[in-house]
């Protein structure tokens, strides 16, 4: 067997550094990452990177920070398996591999000038944080902003301090709910879908942006359509098993689309007929 | 005589395959109790076989013991073929002999290096040897690996061989496989020389006990391992079918292994027994080694079983080379590859019957016996393992050893007994499982 070095292989990783970490909950940990020479990652909100740790593997992780943050970017990782567990051991100064960014993010040019309605369930807040912070950083380019947040319990809520800031802003309408409250919780209890009817919006100029666990979509979309938001104004991000991020390994395929390249952000209009998408 | 009390209680005797305890109790200088307790949890193989296809017998009984898996396989296949009335081909028999050599070689080397050598070099295990005798450890692992590779080529793997089944082999070695095996065997020769050198310098304890030795015997010139009648140094000779008259098994409460006796209170099987009965038929190089370390039949020092194993190693290597050269010359007939499975296609004709397999595996003669019906379903199964035949003999050795060494310290006696038991290379996994020396408190 002969061997040749490939300098342009798509599998080559870039060596990145962990700048800062923070434990968010028992399961989730936050990372700030910088690329070599503090190069900008140049991503769109909604895109993801493949995080690599040699000897363990790779995992696709959404970029949690706004592209307006130039010298570094954020990740938020839930510990579920090999790579994610190993990532949780990382501390400031450690090296990790990054490939990407991959995929299609949220269509900022289309969203500009319109009202936005963000709906995030659980870990869905991670990719949405990127867009929300972008919108807040460029607040004048967008119309009304509504944010609905749902999580299992109050202590599983991510980015609590930031959420508090969004909550306090006058130019953002914020509401959140938990499936199960604890004694300190004063807010809503119940499914996120129960909050949608109460939101005040102009369906014609509102774009809904939904990210959450797979089972959430069906119910949320039903409510949005009940609010007369046109299907082509609903965007969502799908999670699928992924290995290569290059549209080849087949794991993320839904009918003839590859979630890693054609997505993960899709317009509802585009995928509603696709079997197995929602 | 010294009127002391001795309580030895070695739980989980180490460096033997399986679990056993040694229990010695001397009160006022009188030996009250001296037992080798086999406390392995029983695994009920004979029971589990009933109602199963005879074509599964080998696969299951191989799992009696991972150390003698090839030996069990060969005994099982022989018994099964005997029971259903199938005659293996000459090529098959040659390949089985080869497999048996690999098995004996592998097991003997493991025993000599990893299990006995530490005692003789005065350390607890091979681990400290990694530093003190690194070359020896590396050589041991290398030789062990070589045996493994041989089995990998011949039967897929050493632990639970894959291709050796009732009817023949499911995969036959190709020309290149034969060459590779030859290469490995020839490559082992220098290491074998070094092993003999090492053994020459080891000191075995002086101890003798006259007993009866039992092994396969035959009338031809071949050192009988795979086939033959059963013979003993007390002049017994019987067909293997009469194995029950040889083993006369009985159960004792302190052991999950059954005990055995023949012409006297106990008998011994294993390398030393074979050496004592069939010395003349060893390969001439093996005989030279025997002379060099002055081992002669009939030797009655059980500690020297290890030396007999060493001599057999030489025999196995040399005879394996001869068998392979013969196979190369005659060319392997690949048409003989068998496809059997559960005999779905009835490729092997099955008659009802009762069959016995008797094979000289590393620790001595191993009997398998199956009774099958006309559909090839096992109705009754019995396996008599070398170690169970030896346990009784070991206990008599132990008693004599303790009586002769009463003046020594408990620690010295314990070590002497442990070494004695280990020299038999007892495979307790086989006999049930477990070995532990317990010197029970005598003042109960």
């Amino acid at each position: 067997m002969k061997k040749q070095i490939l300098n342009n292989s798509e599998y080559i990783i870039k060596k990145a550094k962990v700048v800062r970490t923070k434990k968010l909950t028992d399961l989730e940990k936050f990372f700030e990452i910088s690329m070599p020479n503090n190069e900008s990652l140049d991503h769109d909100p909604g895109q993801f990177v493949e995080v690599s740790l040699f000897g363990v593997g790779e995992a696709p992780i959404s970029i949690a920070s706004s592209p307006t943050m130039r010298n570094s970017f954020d990740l938020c990782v839930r510990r579920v398996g090999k790579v994610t567990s190993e990532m949780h051991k990382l501390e400031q100064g450690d090296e990790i591999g990054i490939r990407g960014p991959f995929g299609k993010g949220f269509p900022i040019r289309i969203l500009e000038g319109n009202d936005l309605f963000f709906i995030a369930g659980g870990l869905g807040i991670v990719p949405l944080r990127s867009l929300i912070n972008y919108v807040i950083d460029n607040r004048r380019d967008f119309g009304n902003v509504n944010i609905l947040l749902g999580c299992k319990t109050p202590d599983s809520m991510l980015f609590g301090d930031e959420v508090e800031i969004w909550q306090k802003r006058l130019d953002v309408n914020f509401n959140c709910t938990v499936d199960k409250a604890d004694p300190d919780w004063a807010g809503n209890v119940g499914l996120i879908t129960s909050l949608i009817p109460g939101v005040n919006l102009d369906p014609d100029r509102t774009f809904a942006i939904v990210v959450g666990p797979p089972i959430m979509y069906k119910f949320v979309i039903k409510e949005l359509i009940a609010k007369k938001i046109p299907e082509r104004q609903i965007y969502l991000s799908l999670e699928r098993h992924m290995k290569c991020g290059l549209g080849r390994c087949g794991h993320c395929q839904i009918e003839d689309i590859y979630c890693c390249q054609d997505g993960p952000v899709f317009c509802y209009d585009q995928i509603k007929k696709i079997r197995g998408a929602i | 005589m010294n009127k002391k009390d001795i309580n030895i209680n070695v739980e989980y005797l180490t460096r033997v395959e399986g679990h056993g305890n040694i229990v010695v109790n001397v009160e006022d200088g009188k030996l009250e109790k001296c037992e080798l307790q086999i406390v392995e949890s029983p695994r009920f193989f004979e029971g589990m076989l009933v109602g199963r296809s005879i074509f599964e017998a080998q696969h299951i009984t191989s799992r009696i013991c991972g150390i003698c898996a090839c030996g069990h396989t060969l005994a099982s296949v022989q018994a099964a073929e005997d029971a259903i009335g199938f005659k293996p081909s000459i090529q098959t028999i040659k390949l089985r002999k080869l497999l048996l050599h690999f098995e004996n070689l592998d097991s003997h080397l493991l025993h000599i290096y990893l299990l006995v050598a530490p005692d003789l070099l005065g350390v607890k295990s091979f681990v400290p040897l990694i530093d003190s005798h690194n070359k020896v450890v590396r050589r041991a692992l290398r030789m062990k690996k070589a045996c493994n590779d041989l089995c990998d080529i011949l039967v897929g793997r050493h632990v639970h061989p894959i291709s050796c089944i009732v009817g023949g082999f499911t995969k036959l070695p190709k020309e290149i496989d034969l060459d590779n095996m030859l290469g490995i065997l020839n490559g082992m020769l220098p290491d074998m020389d070094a092993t003999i050198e090492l053994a020459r310098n080891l000191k075995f304890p002086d101890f003798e006990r006259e007993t009866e030795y039992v092994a396969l015997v035959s009338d031809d010139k071949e050192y009988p391992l795979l086939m033959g009648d059963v013979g003993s140094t007390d002049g017994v000779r019987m067909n293997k079918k009469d194995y029950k008259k040889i083993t006369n098994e009985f159960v004792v409460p302190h052991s999950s292994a059954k005990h055995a006796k023949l012409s006297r209170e106990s008998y011994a099987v294993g390398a030393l027994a074979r050496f004592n009965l069939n010395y003349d038929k060893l390969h001439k190089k093996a005989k030279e080694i025997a002379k060099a370390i002055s081992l002669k039949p009939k030797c009655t020092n059980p500690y020297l079983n290890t030396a007999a194993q060493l001599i057999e190693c030489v025999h196995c290597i040399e005879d394996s080379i001869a068998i392979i050269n013969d196979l190369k010359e005659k060319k392997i007939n690949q048409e003989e590859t068998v496809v059997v499975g559960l005999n779905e296609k009835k490729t092997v004709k099955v008659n009802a019957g009762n069959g016995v397999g008797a094979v000289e595996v590393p620790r001595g003669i191993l009997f398998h016996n199956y009774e099958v019906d006309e559909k090839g379903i096992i109705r009754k199964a019995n396996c008599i393992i070398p170690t169970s035949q030896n346990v009784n003999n070991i206990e008599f050795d132990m008693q004599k050893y303790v009586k002769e060494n009463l003046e020594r310290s408990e620690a010295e006696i314990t070590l002497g007994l442990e070494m004695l038991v280990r020299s038999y290379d007892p495979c307790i996994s086989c006999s049930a499982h477990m070995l532990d020396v317990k010197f029970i408190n005598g003042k109960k």
Partner: protein
Amino acid sequence: MKRPKIAFFDFACCEGCQLQVANIGEALLDILDIADVVEFREVMSEKWDQSFDIAVVEGSITDHHAIERIKMIRSRSKLLIAYGSCATIGGINGMKNNFELDEIRKEVYGKDYKYFDTIKTMPVHHVVKVDYFVNGCPIYPPEFITVLKAALSGIPYDVPDKSVCIECKFNENICMYEKGLTCMGPITRAGCNSWCINNGNICYGCRGMVSNPNEKSAKDILEKYKIDLNLILNRINMYNKCRELEDNEQKRY
């Protein structure tokens, strides 16, 4: 980094898996380079009475004494690896559960059968928590090394949940069904590199069943071969008998 301490233990089994570890040969010394083996009864006399980082356990639990022993081992060890079919799925020992216990004891030991304590065969995880599983009868050494490495680096290992056929095809074997034989490959977990079929034999299912086998279809296919259904059920049960305990009496840890 502190060198992790590893200890090997065995319960009812043939000890073949220990031997497989010994068989790794000189590469074994590489492992000893990064970890301390503190107990390994088959080849070592040393005993270690303190706690250790990794306990590697072989064999099934078949008597009361074993239950106590395995609990003790678990309490002393940070991680526990069950290796070999006997430990991970009950394996061959599970066939015993086909019989009434007294009946089988009498069969083997005659009238003195009561001396021999026995209970239904259980894999280790029926009694204590197991962190890593290495299936196989015997274990496939490369997989054992992979798991050991995972344990040493503290990352999880998932036993492959696909069929032996996958690897069998990688090796371009002629399928046993095409030879007219029944094979356990389709419902057995991969990871052994289709060892048996590579050597001309059928798969006996030693690595346990995939998590969601299409048992009905598998039985349909096996039945087509016109052999006694009992023999086929026996074949499926050869290694997998203990699965029944999971649905009935016992819960997995």
